[in-house]
């Protein structure tokens, strides 16, 4: 780079200032978590708490199911729209953006209103509520999943690939399974990781549906304990970091751009 030394220095300063802003809260949490007696007690306590494991496991499983359902709905839809119904695309996109606009608390109340009366009385049972939770999370994942898959489809020129497959005699199922899905690996992973991050961190919907997810758990101990929440926060941050790191690693060398933006 032919950047003059002087301006490069300026950018180094900008970078370091930015990084320290990010690092501070994490450091603060870390040091706080070490103030327990003994020093690692915050971590051991939380790791010993069955509530921690149960809620984390629960959220994880819910997350995985959400991802699976979301992929099964979104990928064929995005594929079909791109290939056969391009005029429908703006409308579908609009629908997938709706979850951005509707606050989660409204969504959950809407769901409660809709599904706590016959004929679809889901809220009465645990399984029913679990189903509702997954459904809500799938909806929440739509913006990210759809955007990721749609831009992936654009990159791989899905039309040409499909025509090539068809000329070689492949049927729709085979095309989806052996051509489209493998080529969308990075996009799907990108959407998947984002969905997982959202699910694991989500609080409002889980609380109002009475589910023992990780979000409500953290809130609970946040109000009750001192050092465990700090440990819990860092652990959840670490898990997300590892997930993102894996995603970047897998996405390296791929033509598709890895989307990692989230919200809330």
């Amino acid at each position, binding site marked *: 780079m032919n*950047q003059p030394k002087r*301006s*490069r220095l*300026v*950018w180094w300063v*900008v*970078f370091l200032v930015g990084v320290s802003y*990010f690092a*501070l*809260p*994490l*450091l*603060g*949490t870390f*040091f*706080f*978590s070490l103030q327990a007696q003994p020093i690692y007690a915050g971590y051991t306590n939380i790791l010993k708490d069955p509530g921690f494991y149960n809620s984390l496991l629960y959220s994880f499983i819910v997350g995985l199911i959400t991802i699976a359902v979301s992929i099964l709905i979104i990928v*064929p*839809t995005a594929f*079909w*729209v791109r*290939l*056969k*119904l*391009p*005029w429908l695309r703006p*409308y579908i996109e609009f629908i997938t*953006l*709706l*979850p*951005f*606009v*509707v*606050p989660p*608390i*409204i*969504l959950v109340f*809407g*769901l409660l*209103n809709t599904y706590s009366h016959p004929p679809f009385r889901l809220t009465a049972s645990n399984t029913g509520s679990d189903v509702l939770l997954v*459904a809500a999370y799938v*909806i929440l994942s739509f913006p990210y999943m759809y955007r990721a898959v749609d831009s992936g489809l654009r990159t791989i020129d899905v039309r040409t690939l499909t025509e090539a497959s068809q000329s070689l005699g492949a049927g729709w199922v085979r095309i989806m399974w052996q051509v489209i899905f493998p080529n969308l690996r990075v996009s799907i992973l990108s959407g998947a990781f984002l969905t997982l991050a959202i699910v694991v*961190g*989500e609080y409002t919907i889980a609380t*109002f549906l009475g589910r023992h997810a990780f979000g409500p758990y953290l*809130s609970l101990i*946040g109000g009750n304990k001192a050092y465990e929440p*700090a440990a819990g*926060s860092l652990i*959840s*941050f670490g898990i*997300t*970091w590892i997930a*993102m*790191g894996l995603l*970047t690693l897998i996405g390296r060398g791929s033509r598709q751009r890895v989307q*990692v933006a*989230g*919200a*809330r």
Partner: protein
Amino acid sequence: MPASARGASSTRSGRRRFNPSILGVLPFLIFAFAFLIIPASYLVIGSLQDKTGAFTTQNYADLTKDGVGGPREAYLTSIEISAVTAIAGAILGFLLAYAVISGGLPKALRSGLMTFSGVASNFAGIPLALAFVFTLGSNGLFTVLLRDAGINIYDSGFKLYSKFGLELVYLYFQFPLMVLIIAPAIDGLRKDWREASENMGASTFQYWRYIALPILLPTLMGSTLLLFGNAFGAQATAFQLAPLVNIAPVLIGKQMSGDVLHNPGLGYALAIGMVAIMGVAILAYSVLQRRSERWMR
């Protein structure tokens, strides 16, 4: 939104024939209807009901009610926080992104920052709120460090559980979100534009003023809008950190179930107001996106 000819078969008379392909998107549409559109439509229905279920438009009238803890204050506070963190996040995010992309720093820093930004922009809600408490709370790491250095921020009126504190916390995920959104646009600033401008005799300042910023402006504004929407809808963080700060999502929460005087109808109306505001923001964003795409082929 142009209806392109492909995929939609039309008869000579111009009417669109029923295209069986549309069945392919049926699963999606059914799912969206069942779990999104119908529940969300309660928004409208519920906003027109009072506590007894009778029809009323009072809720909408109440939206502009003044007073502490009231809807107007909630909207204004929400808008203020969202706008402040959107603009601040946009500026800071842009600077940081530019630093690692075009600032002459080692390439490895760029991918590290991008990964971190991906994590940080999702680090919202309760863990983030707690993290800030641990850093800037009355016994937080940073507070104590400053106190040892002789500066007591709490004495000068700083409160984490306040509007300002909320802004500080929101910035934590706004900032990296901006980095992620603006990075491709900065990439799109071709090196030869910079060289051409230098060749024409322009200084760095003139390059930014006449070329780089005008080119980036639509994307910058669009990203700021996206950040605005992001902050506007964020609720869990606020609830955890500062339930006493009156912002719209929190108020909705109270109306739905928390407050003794709760009025679900008002909650729904509040939500419609939020949706309207968000909708405008998103619309403006996509208009700007289209404009910037036109230049950057």
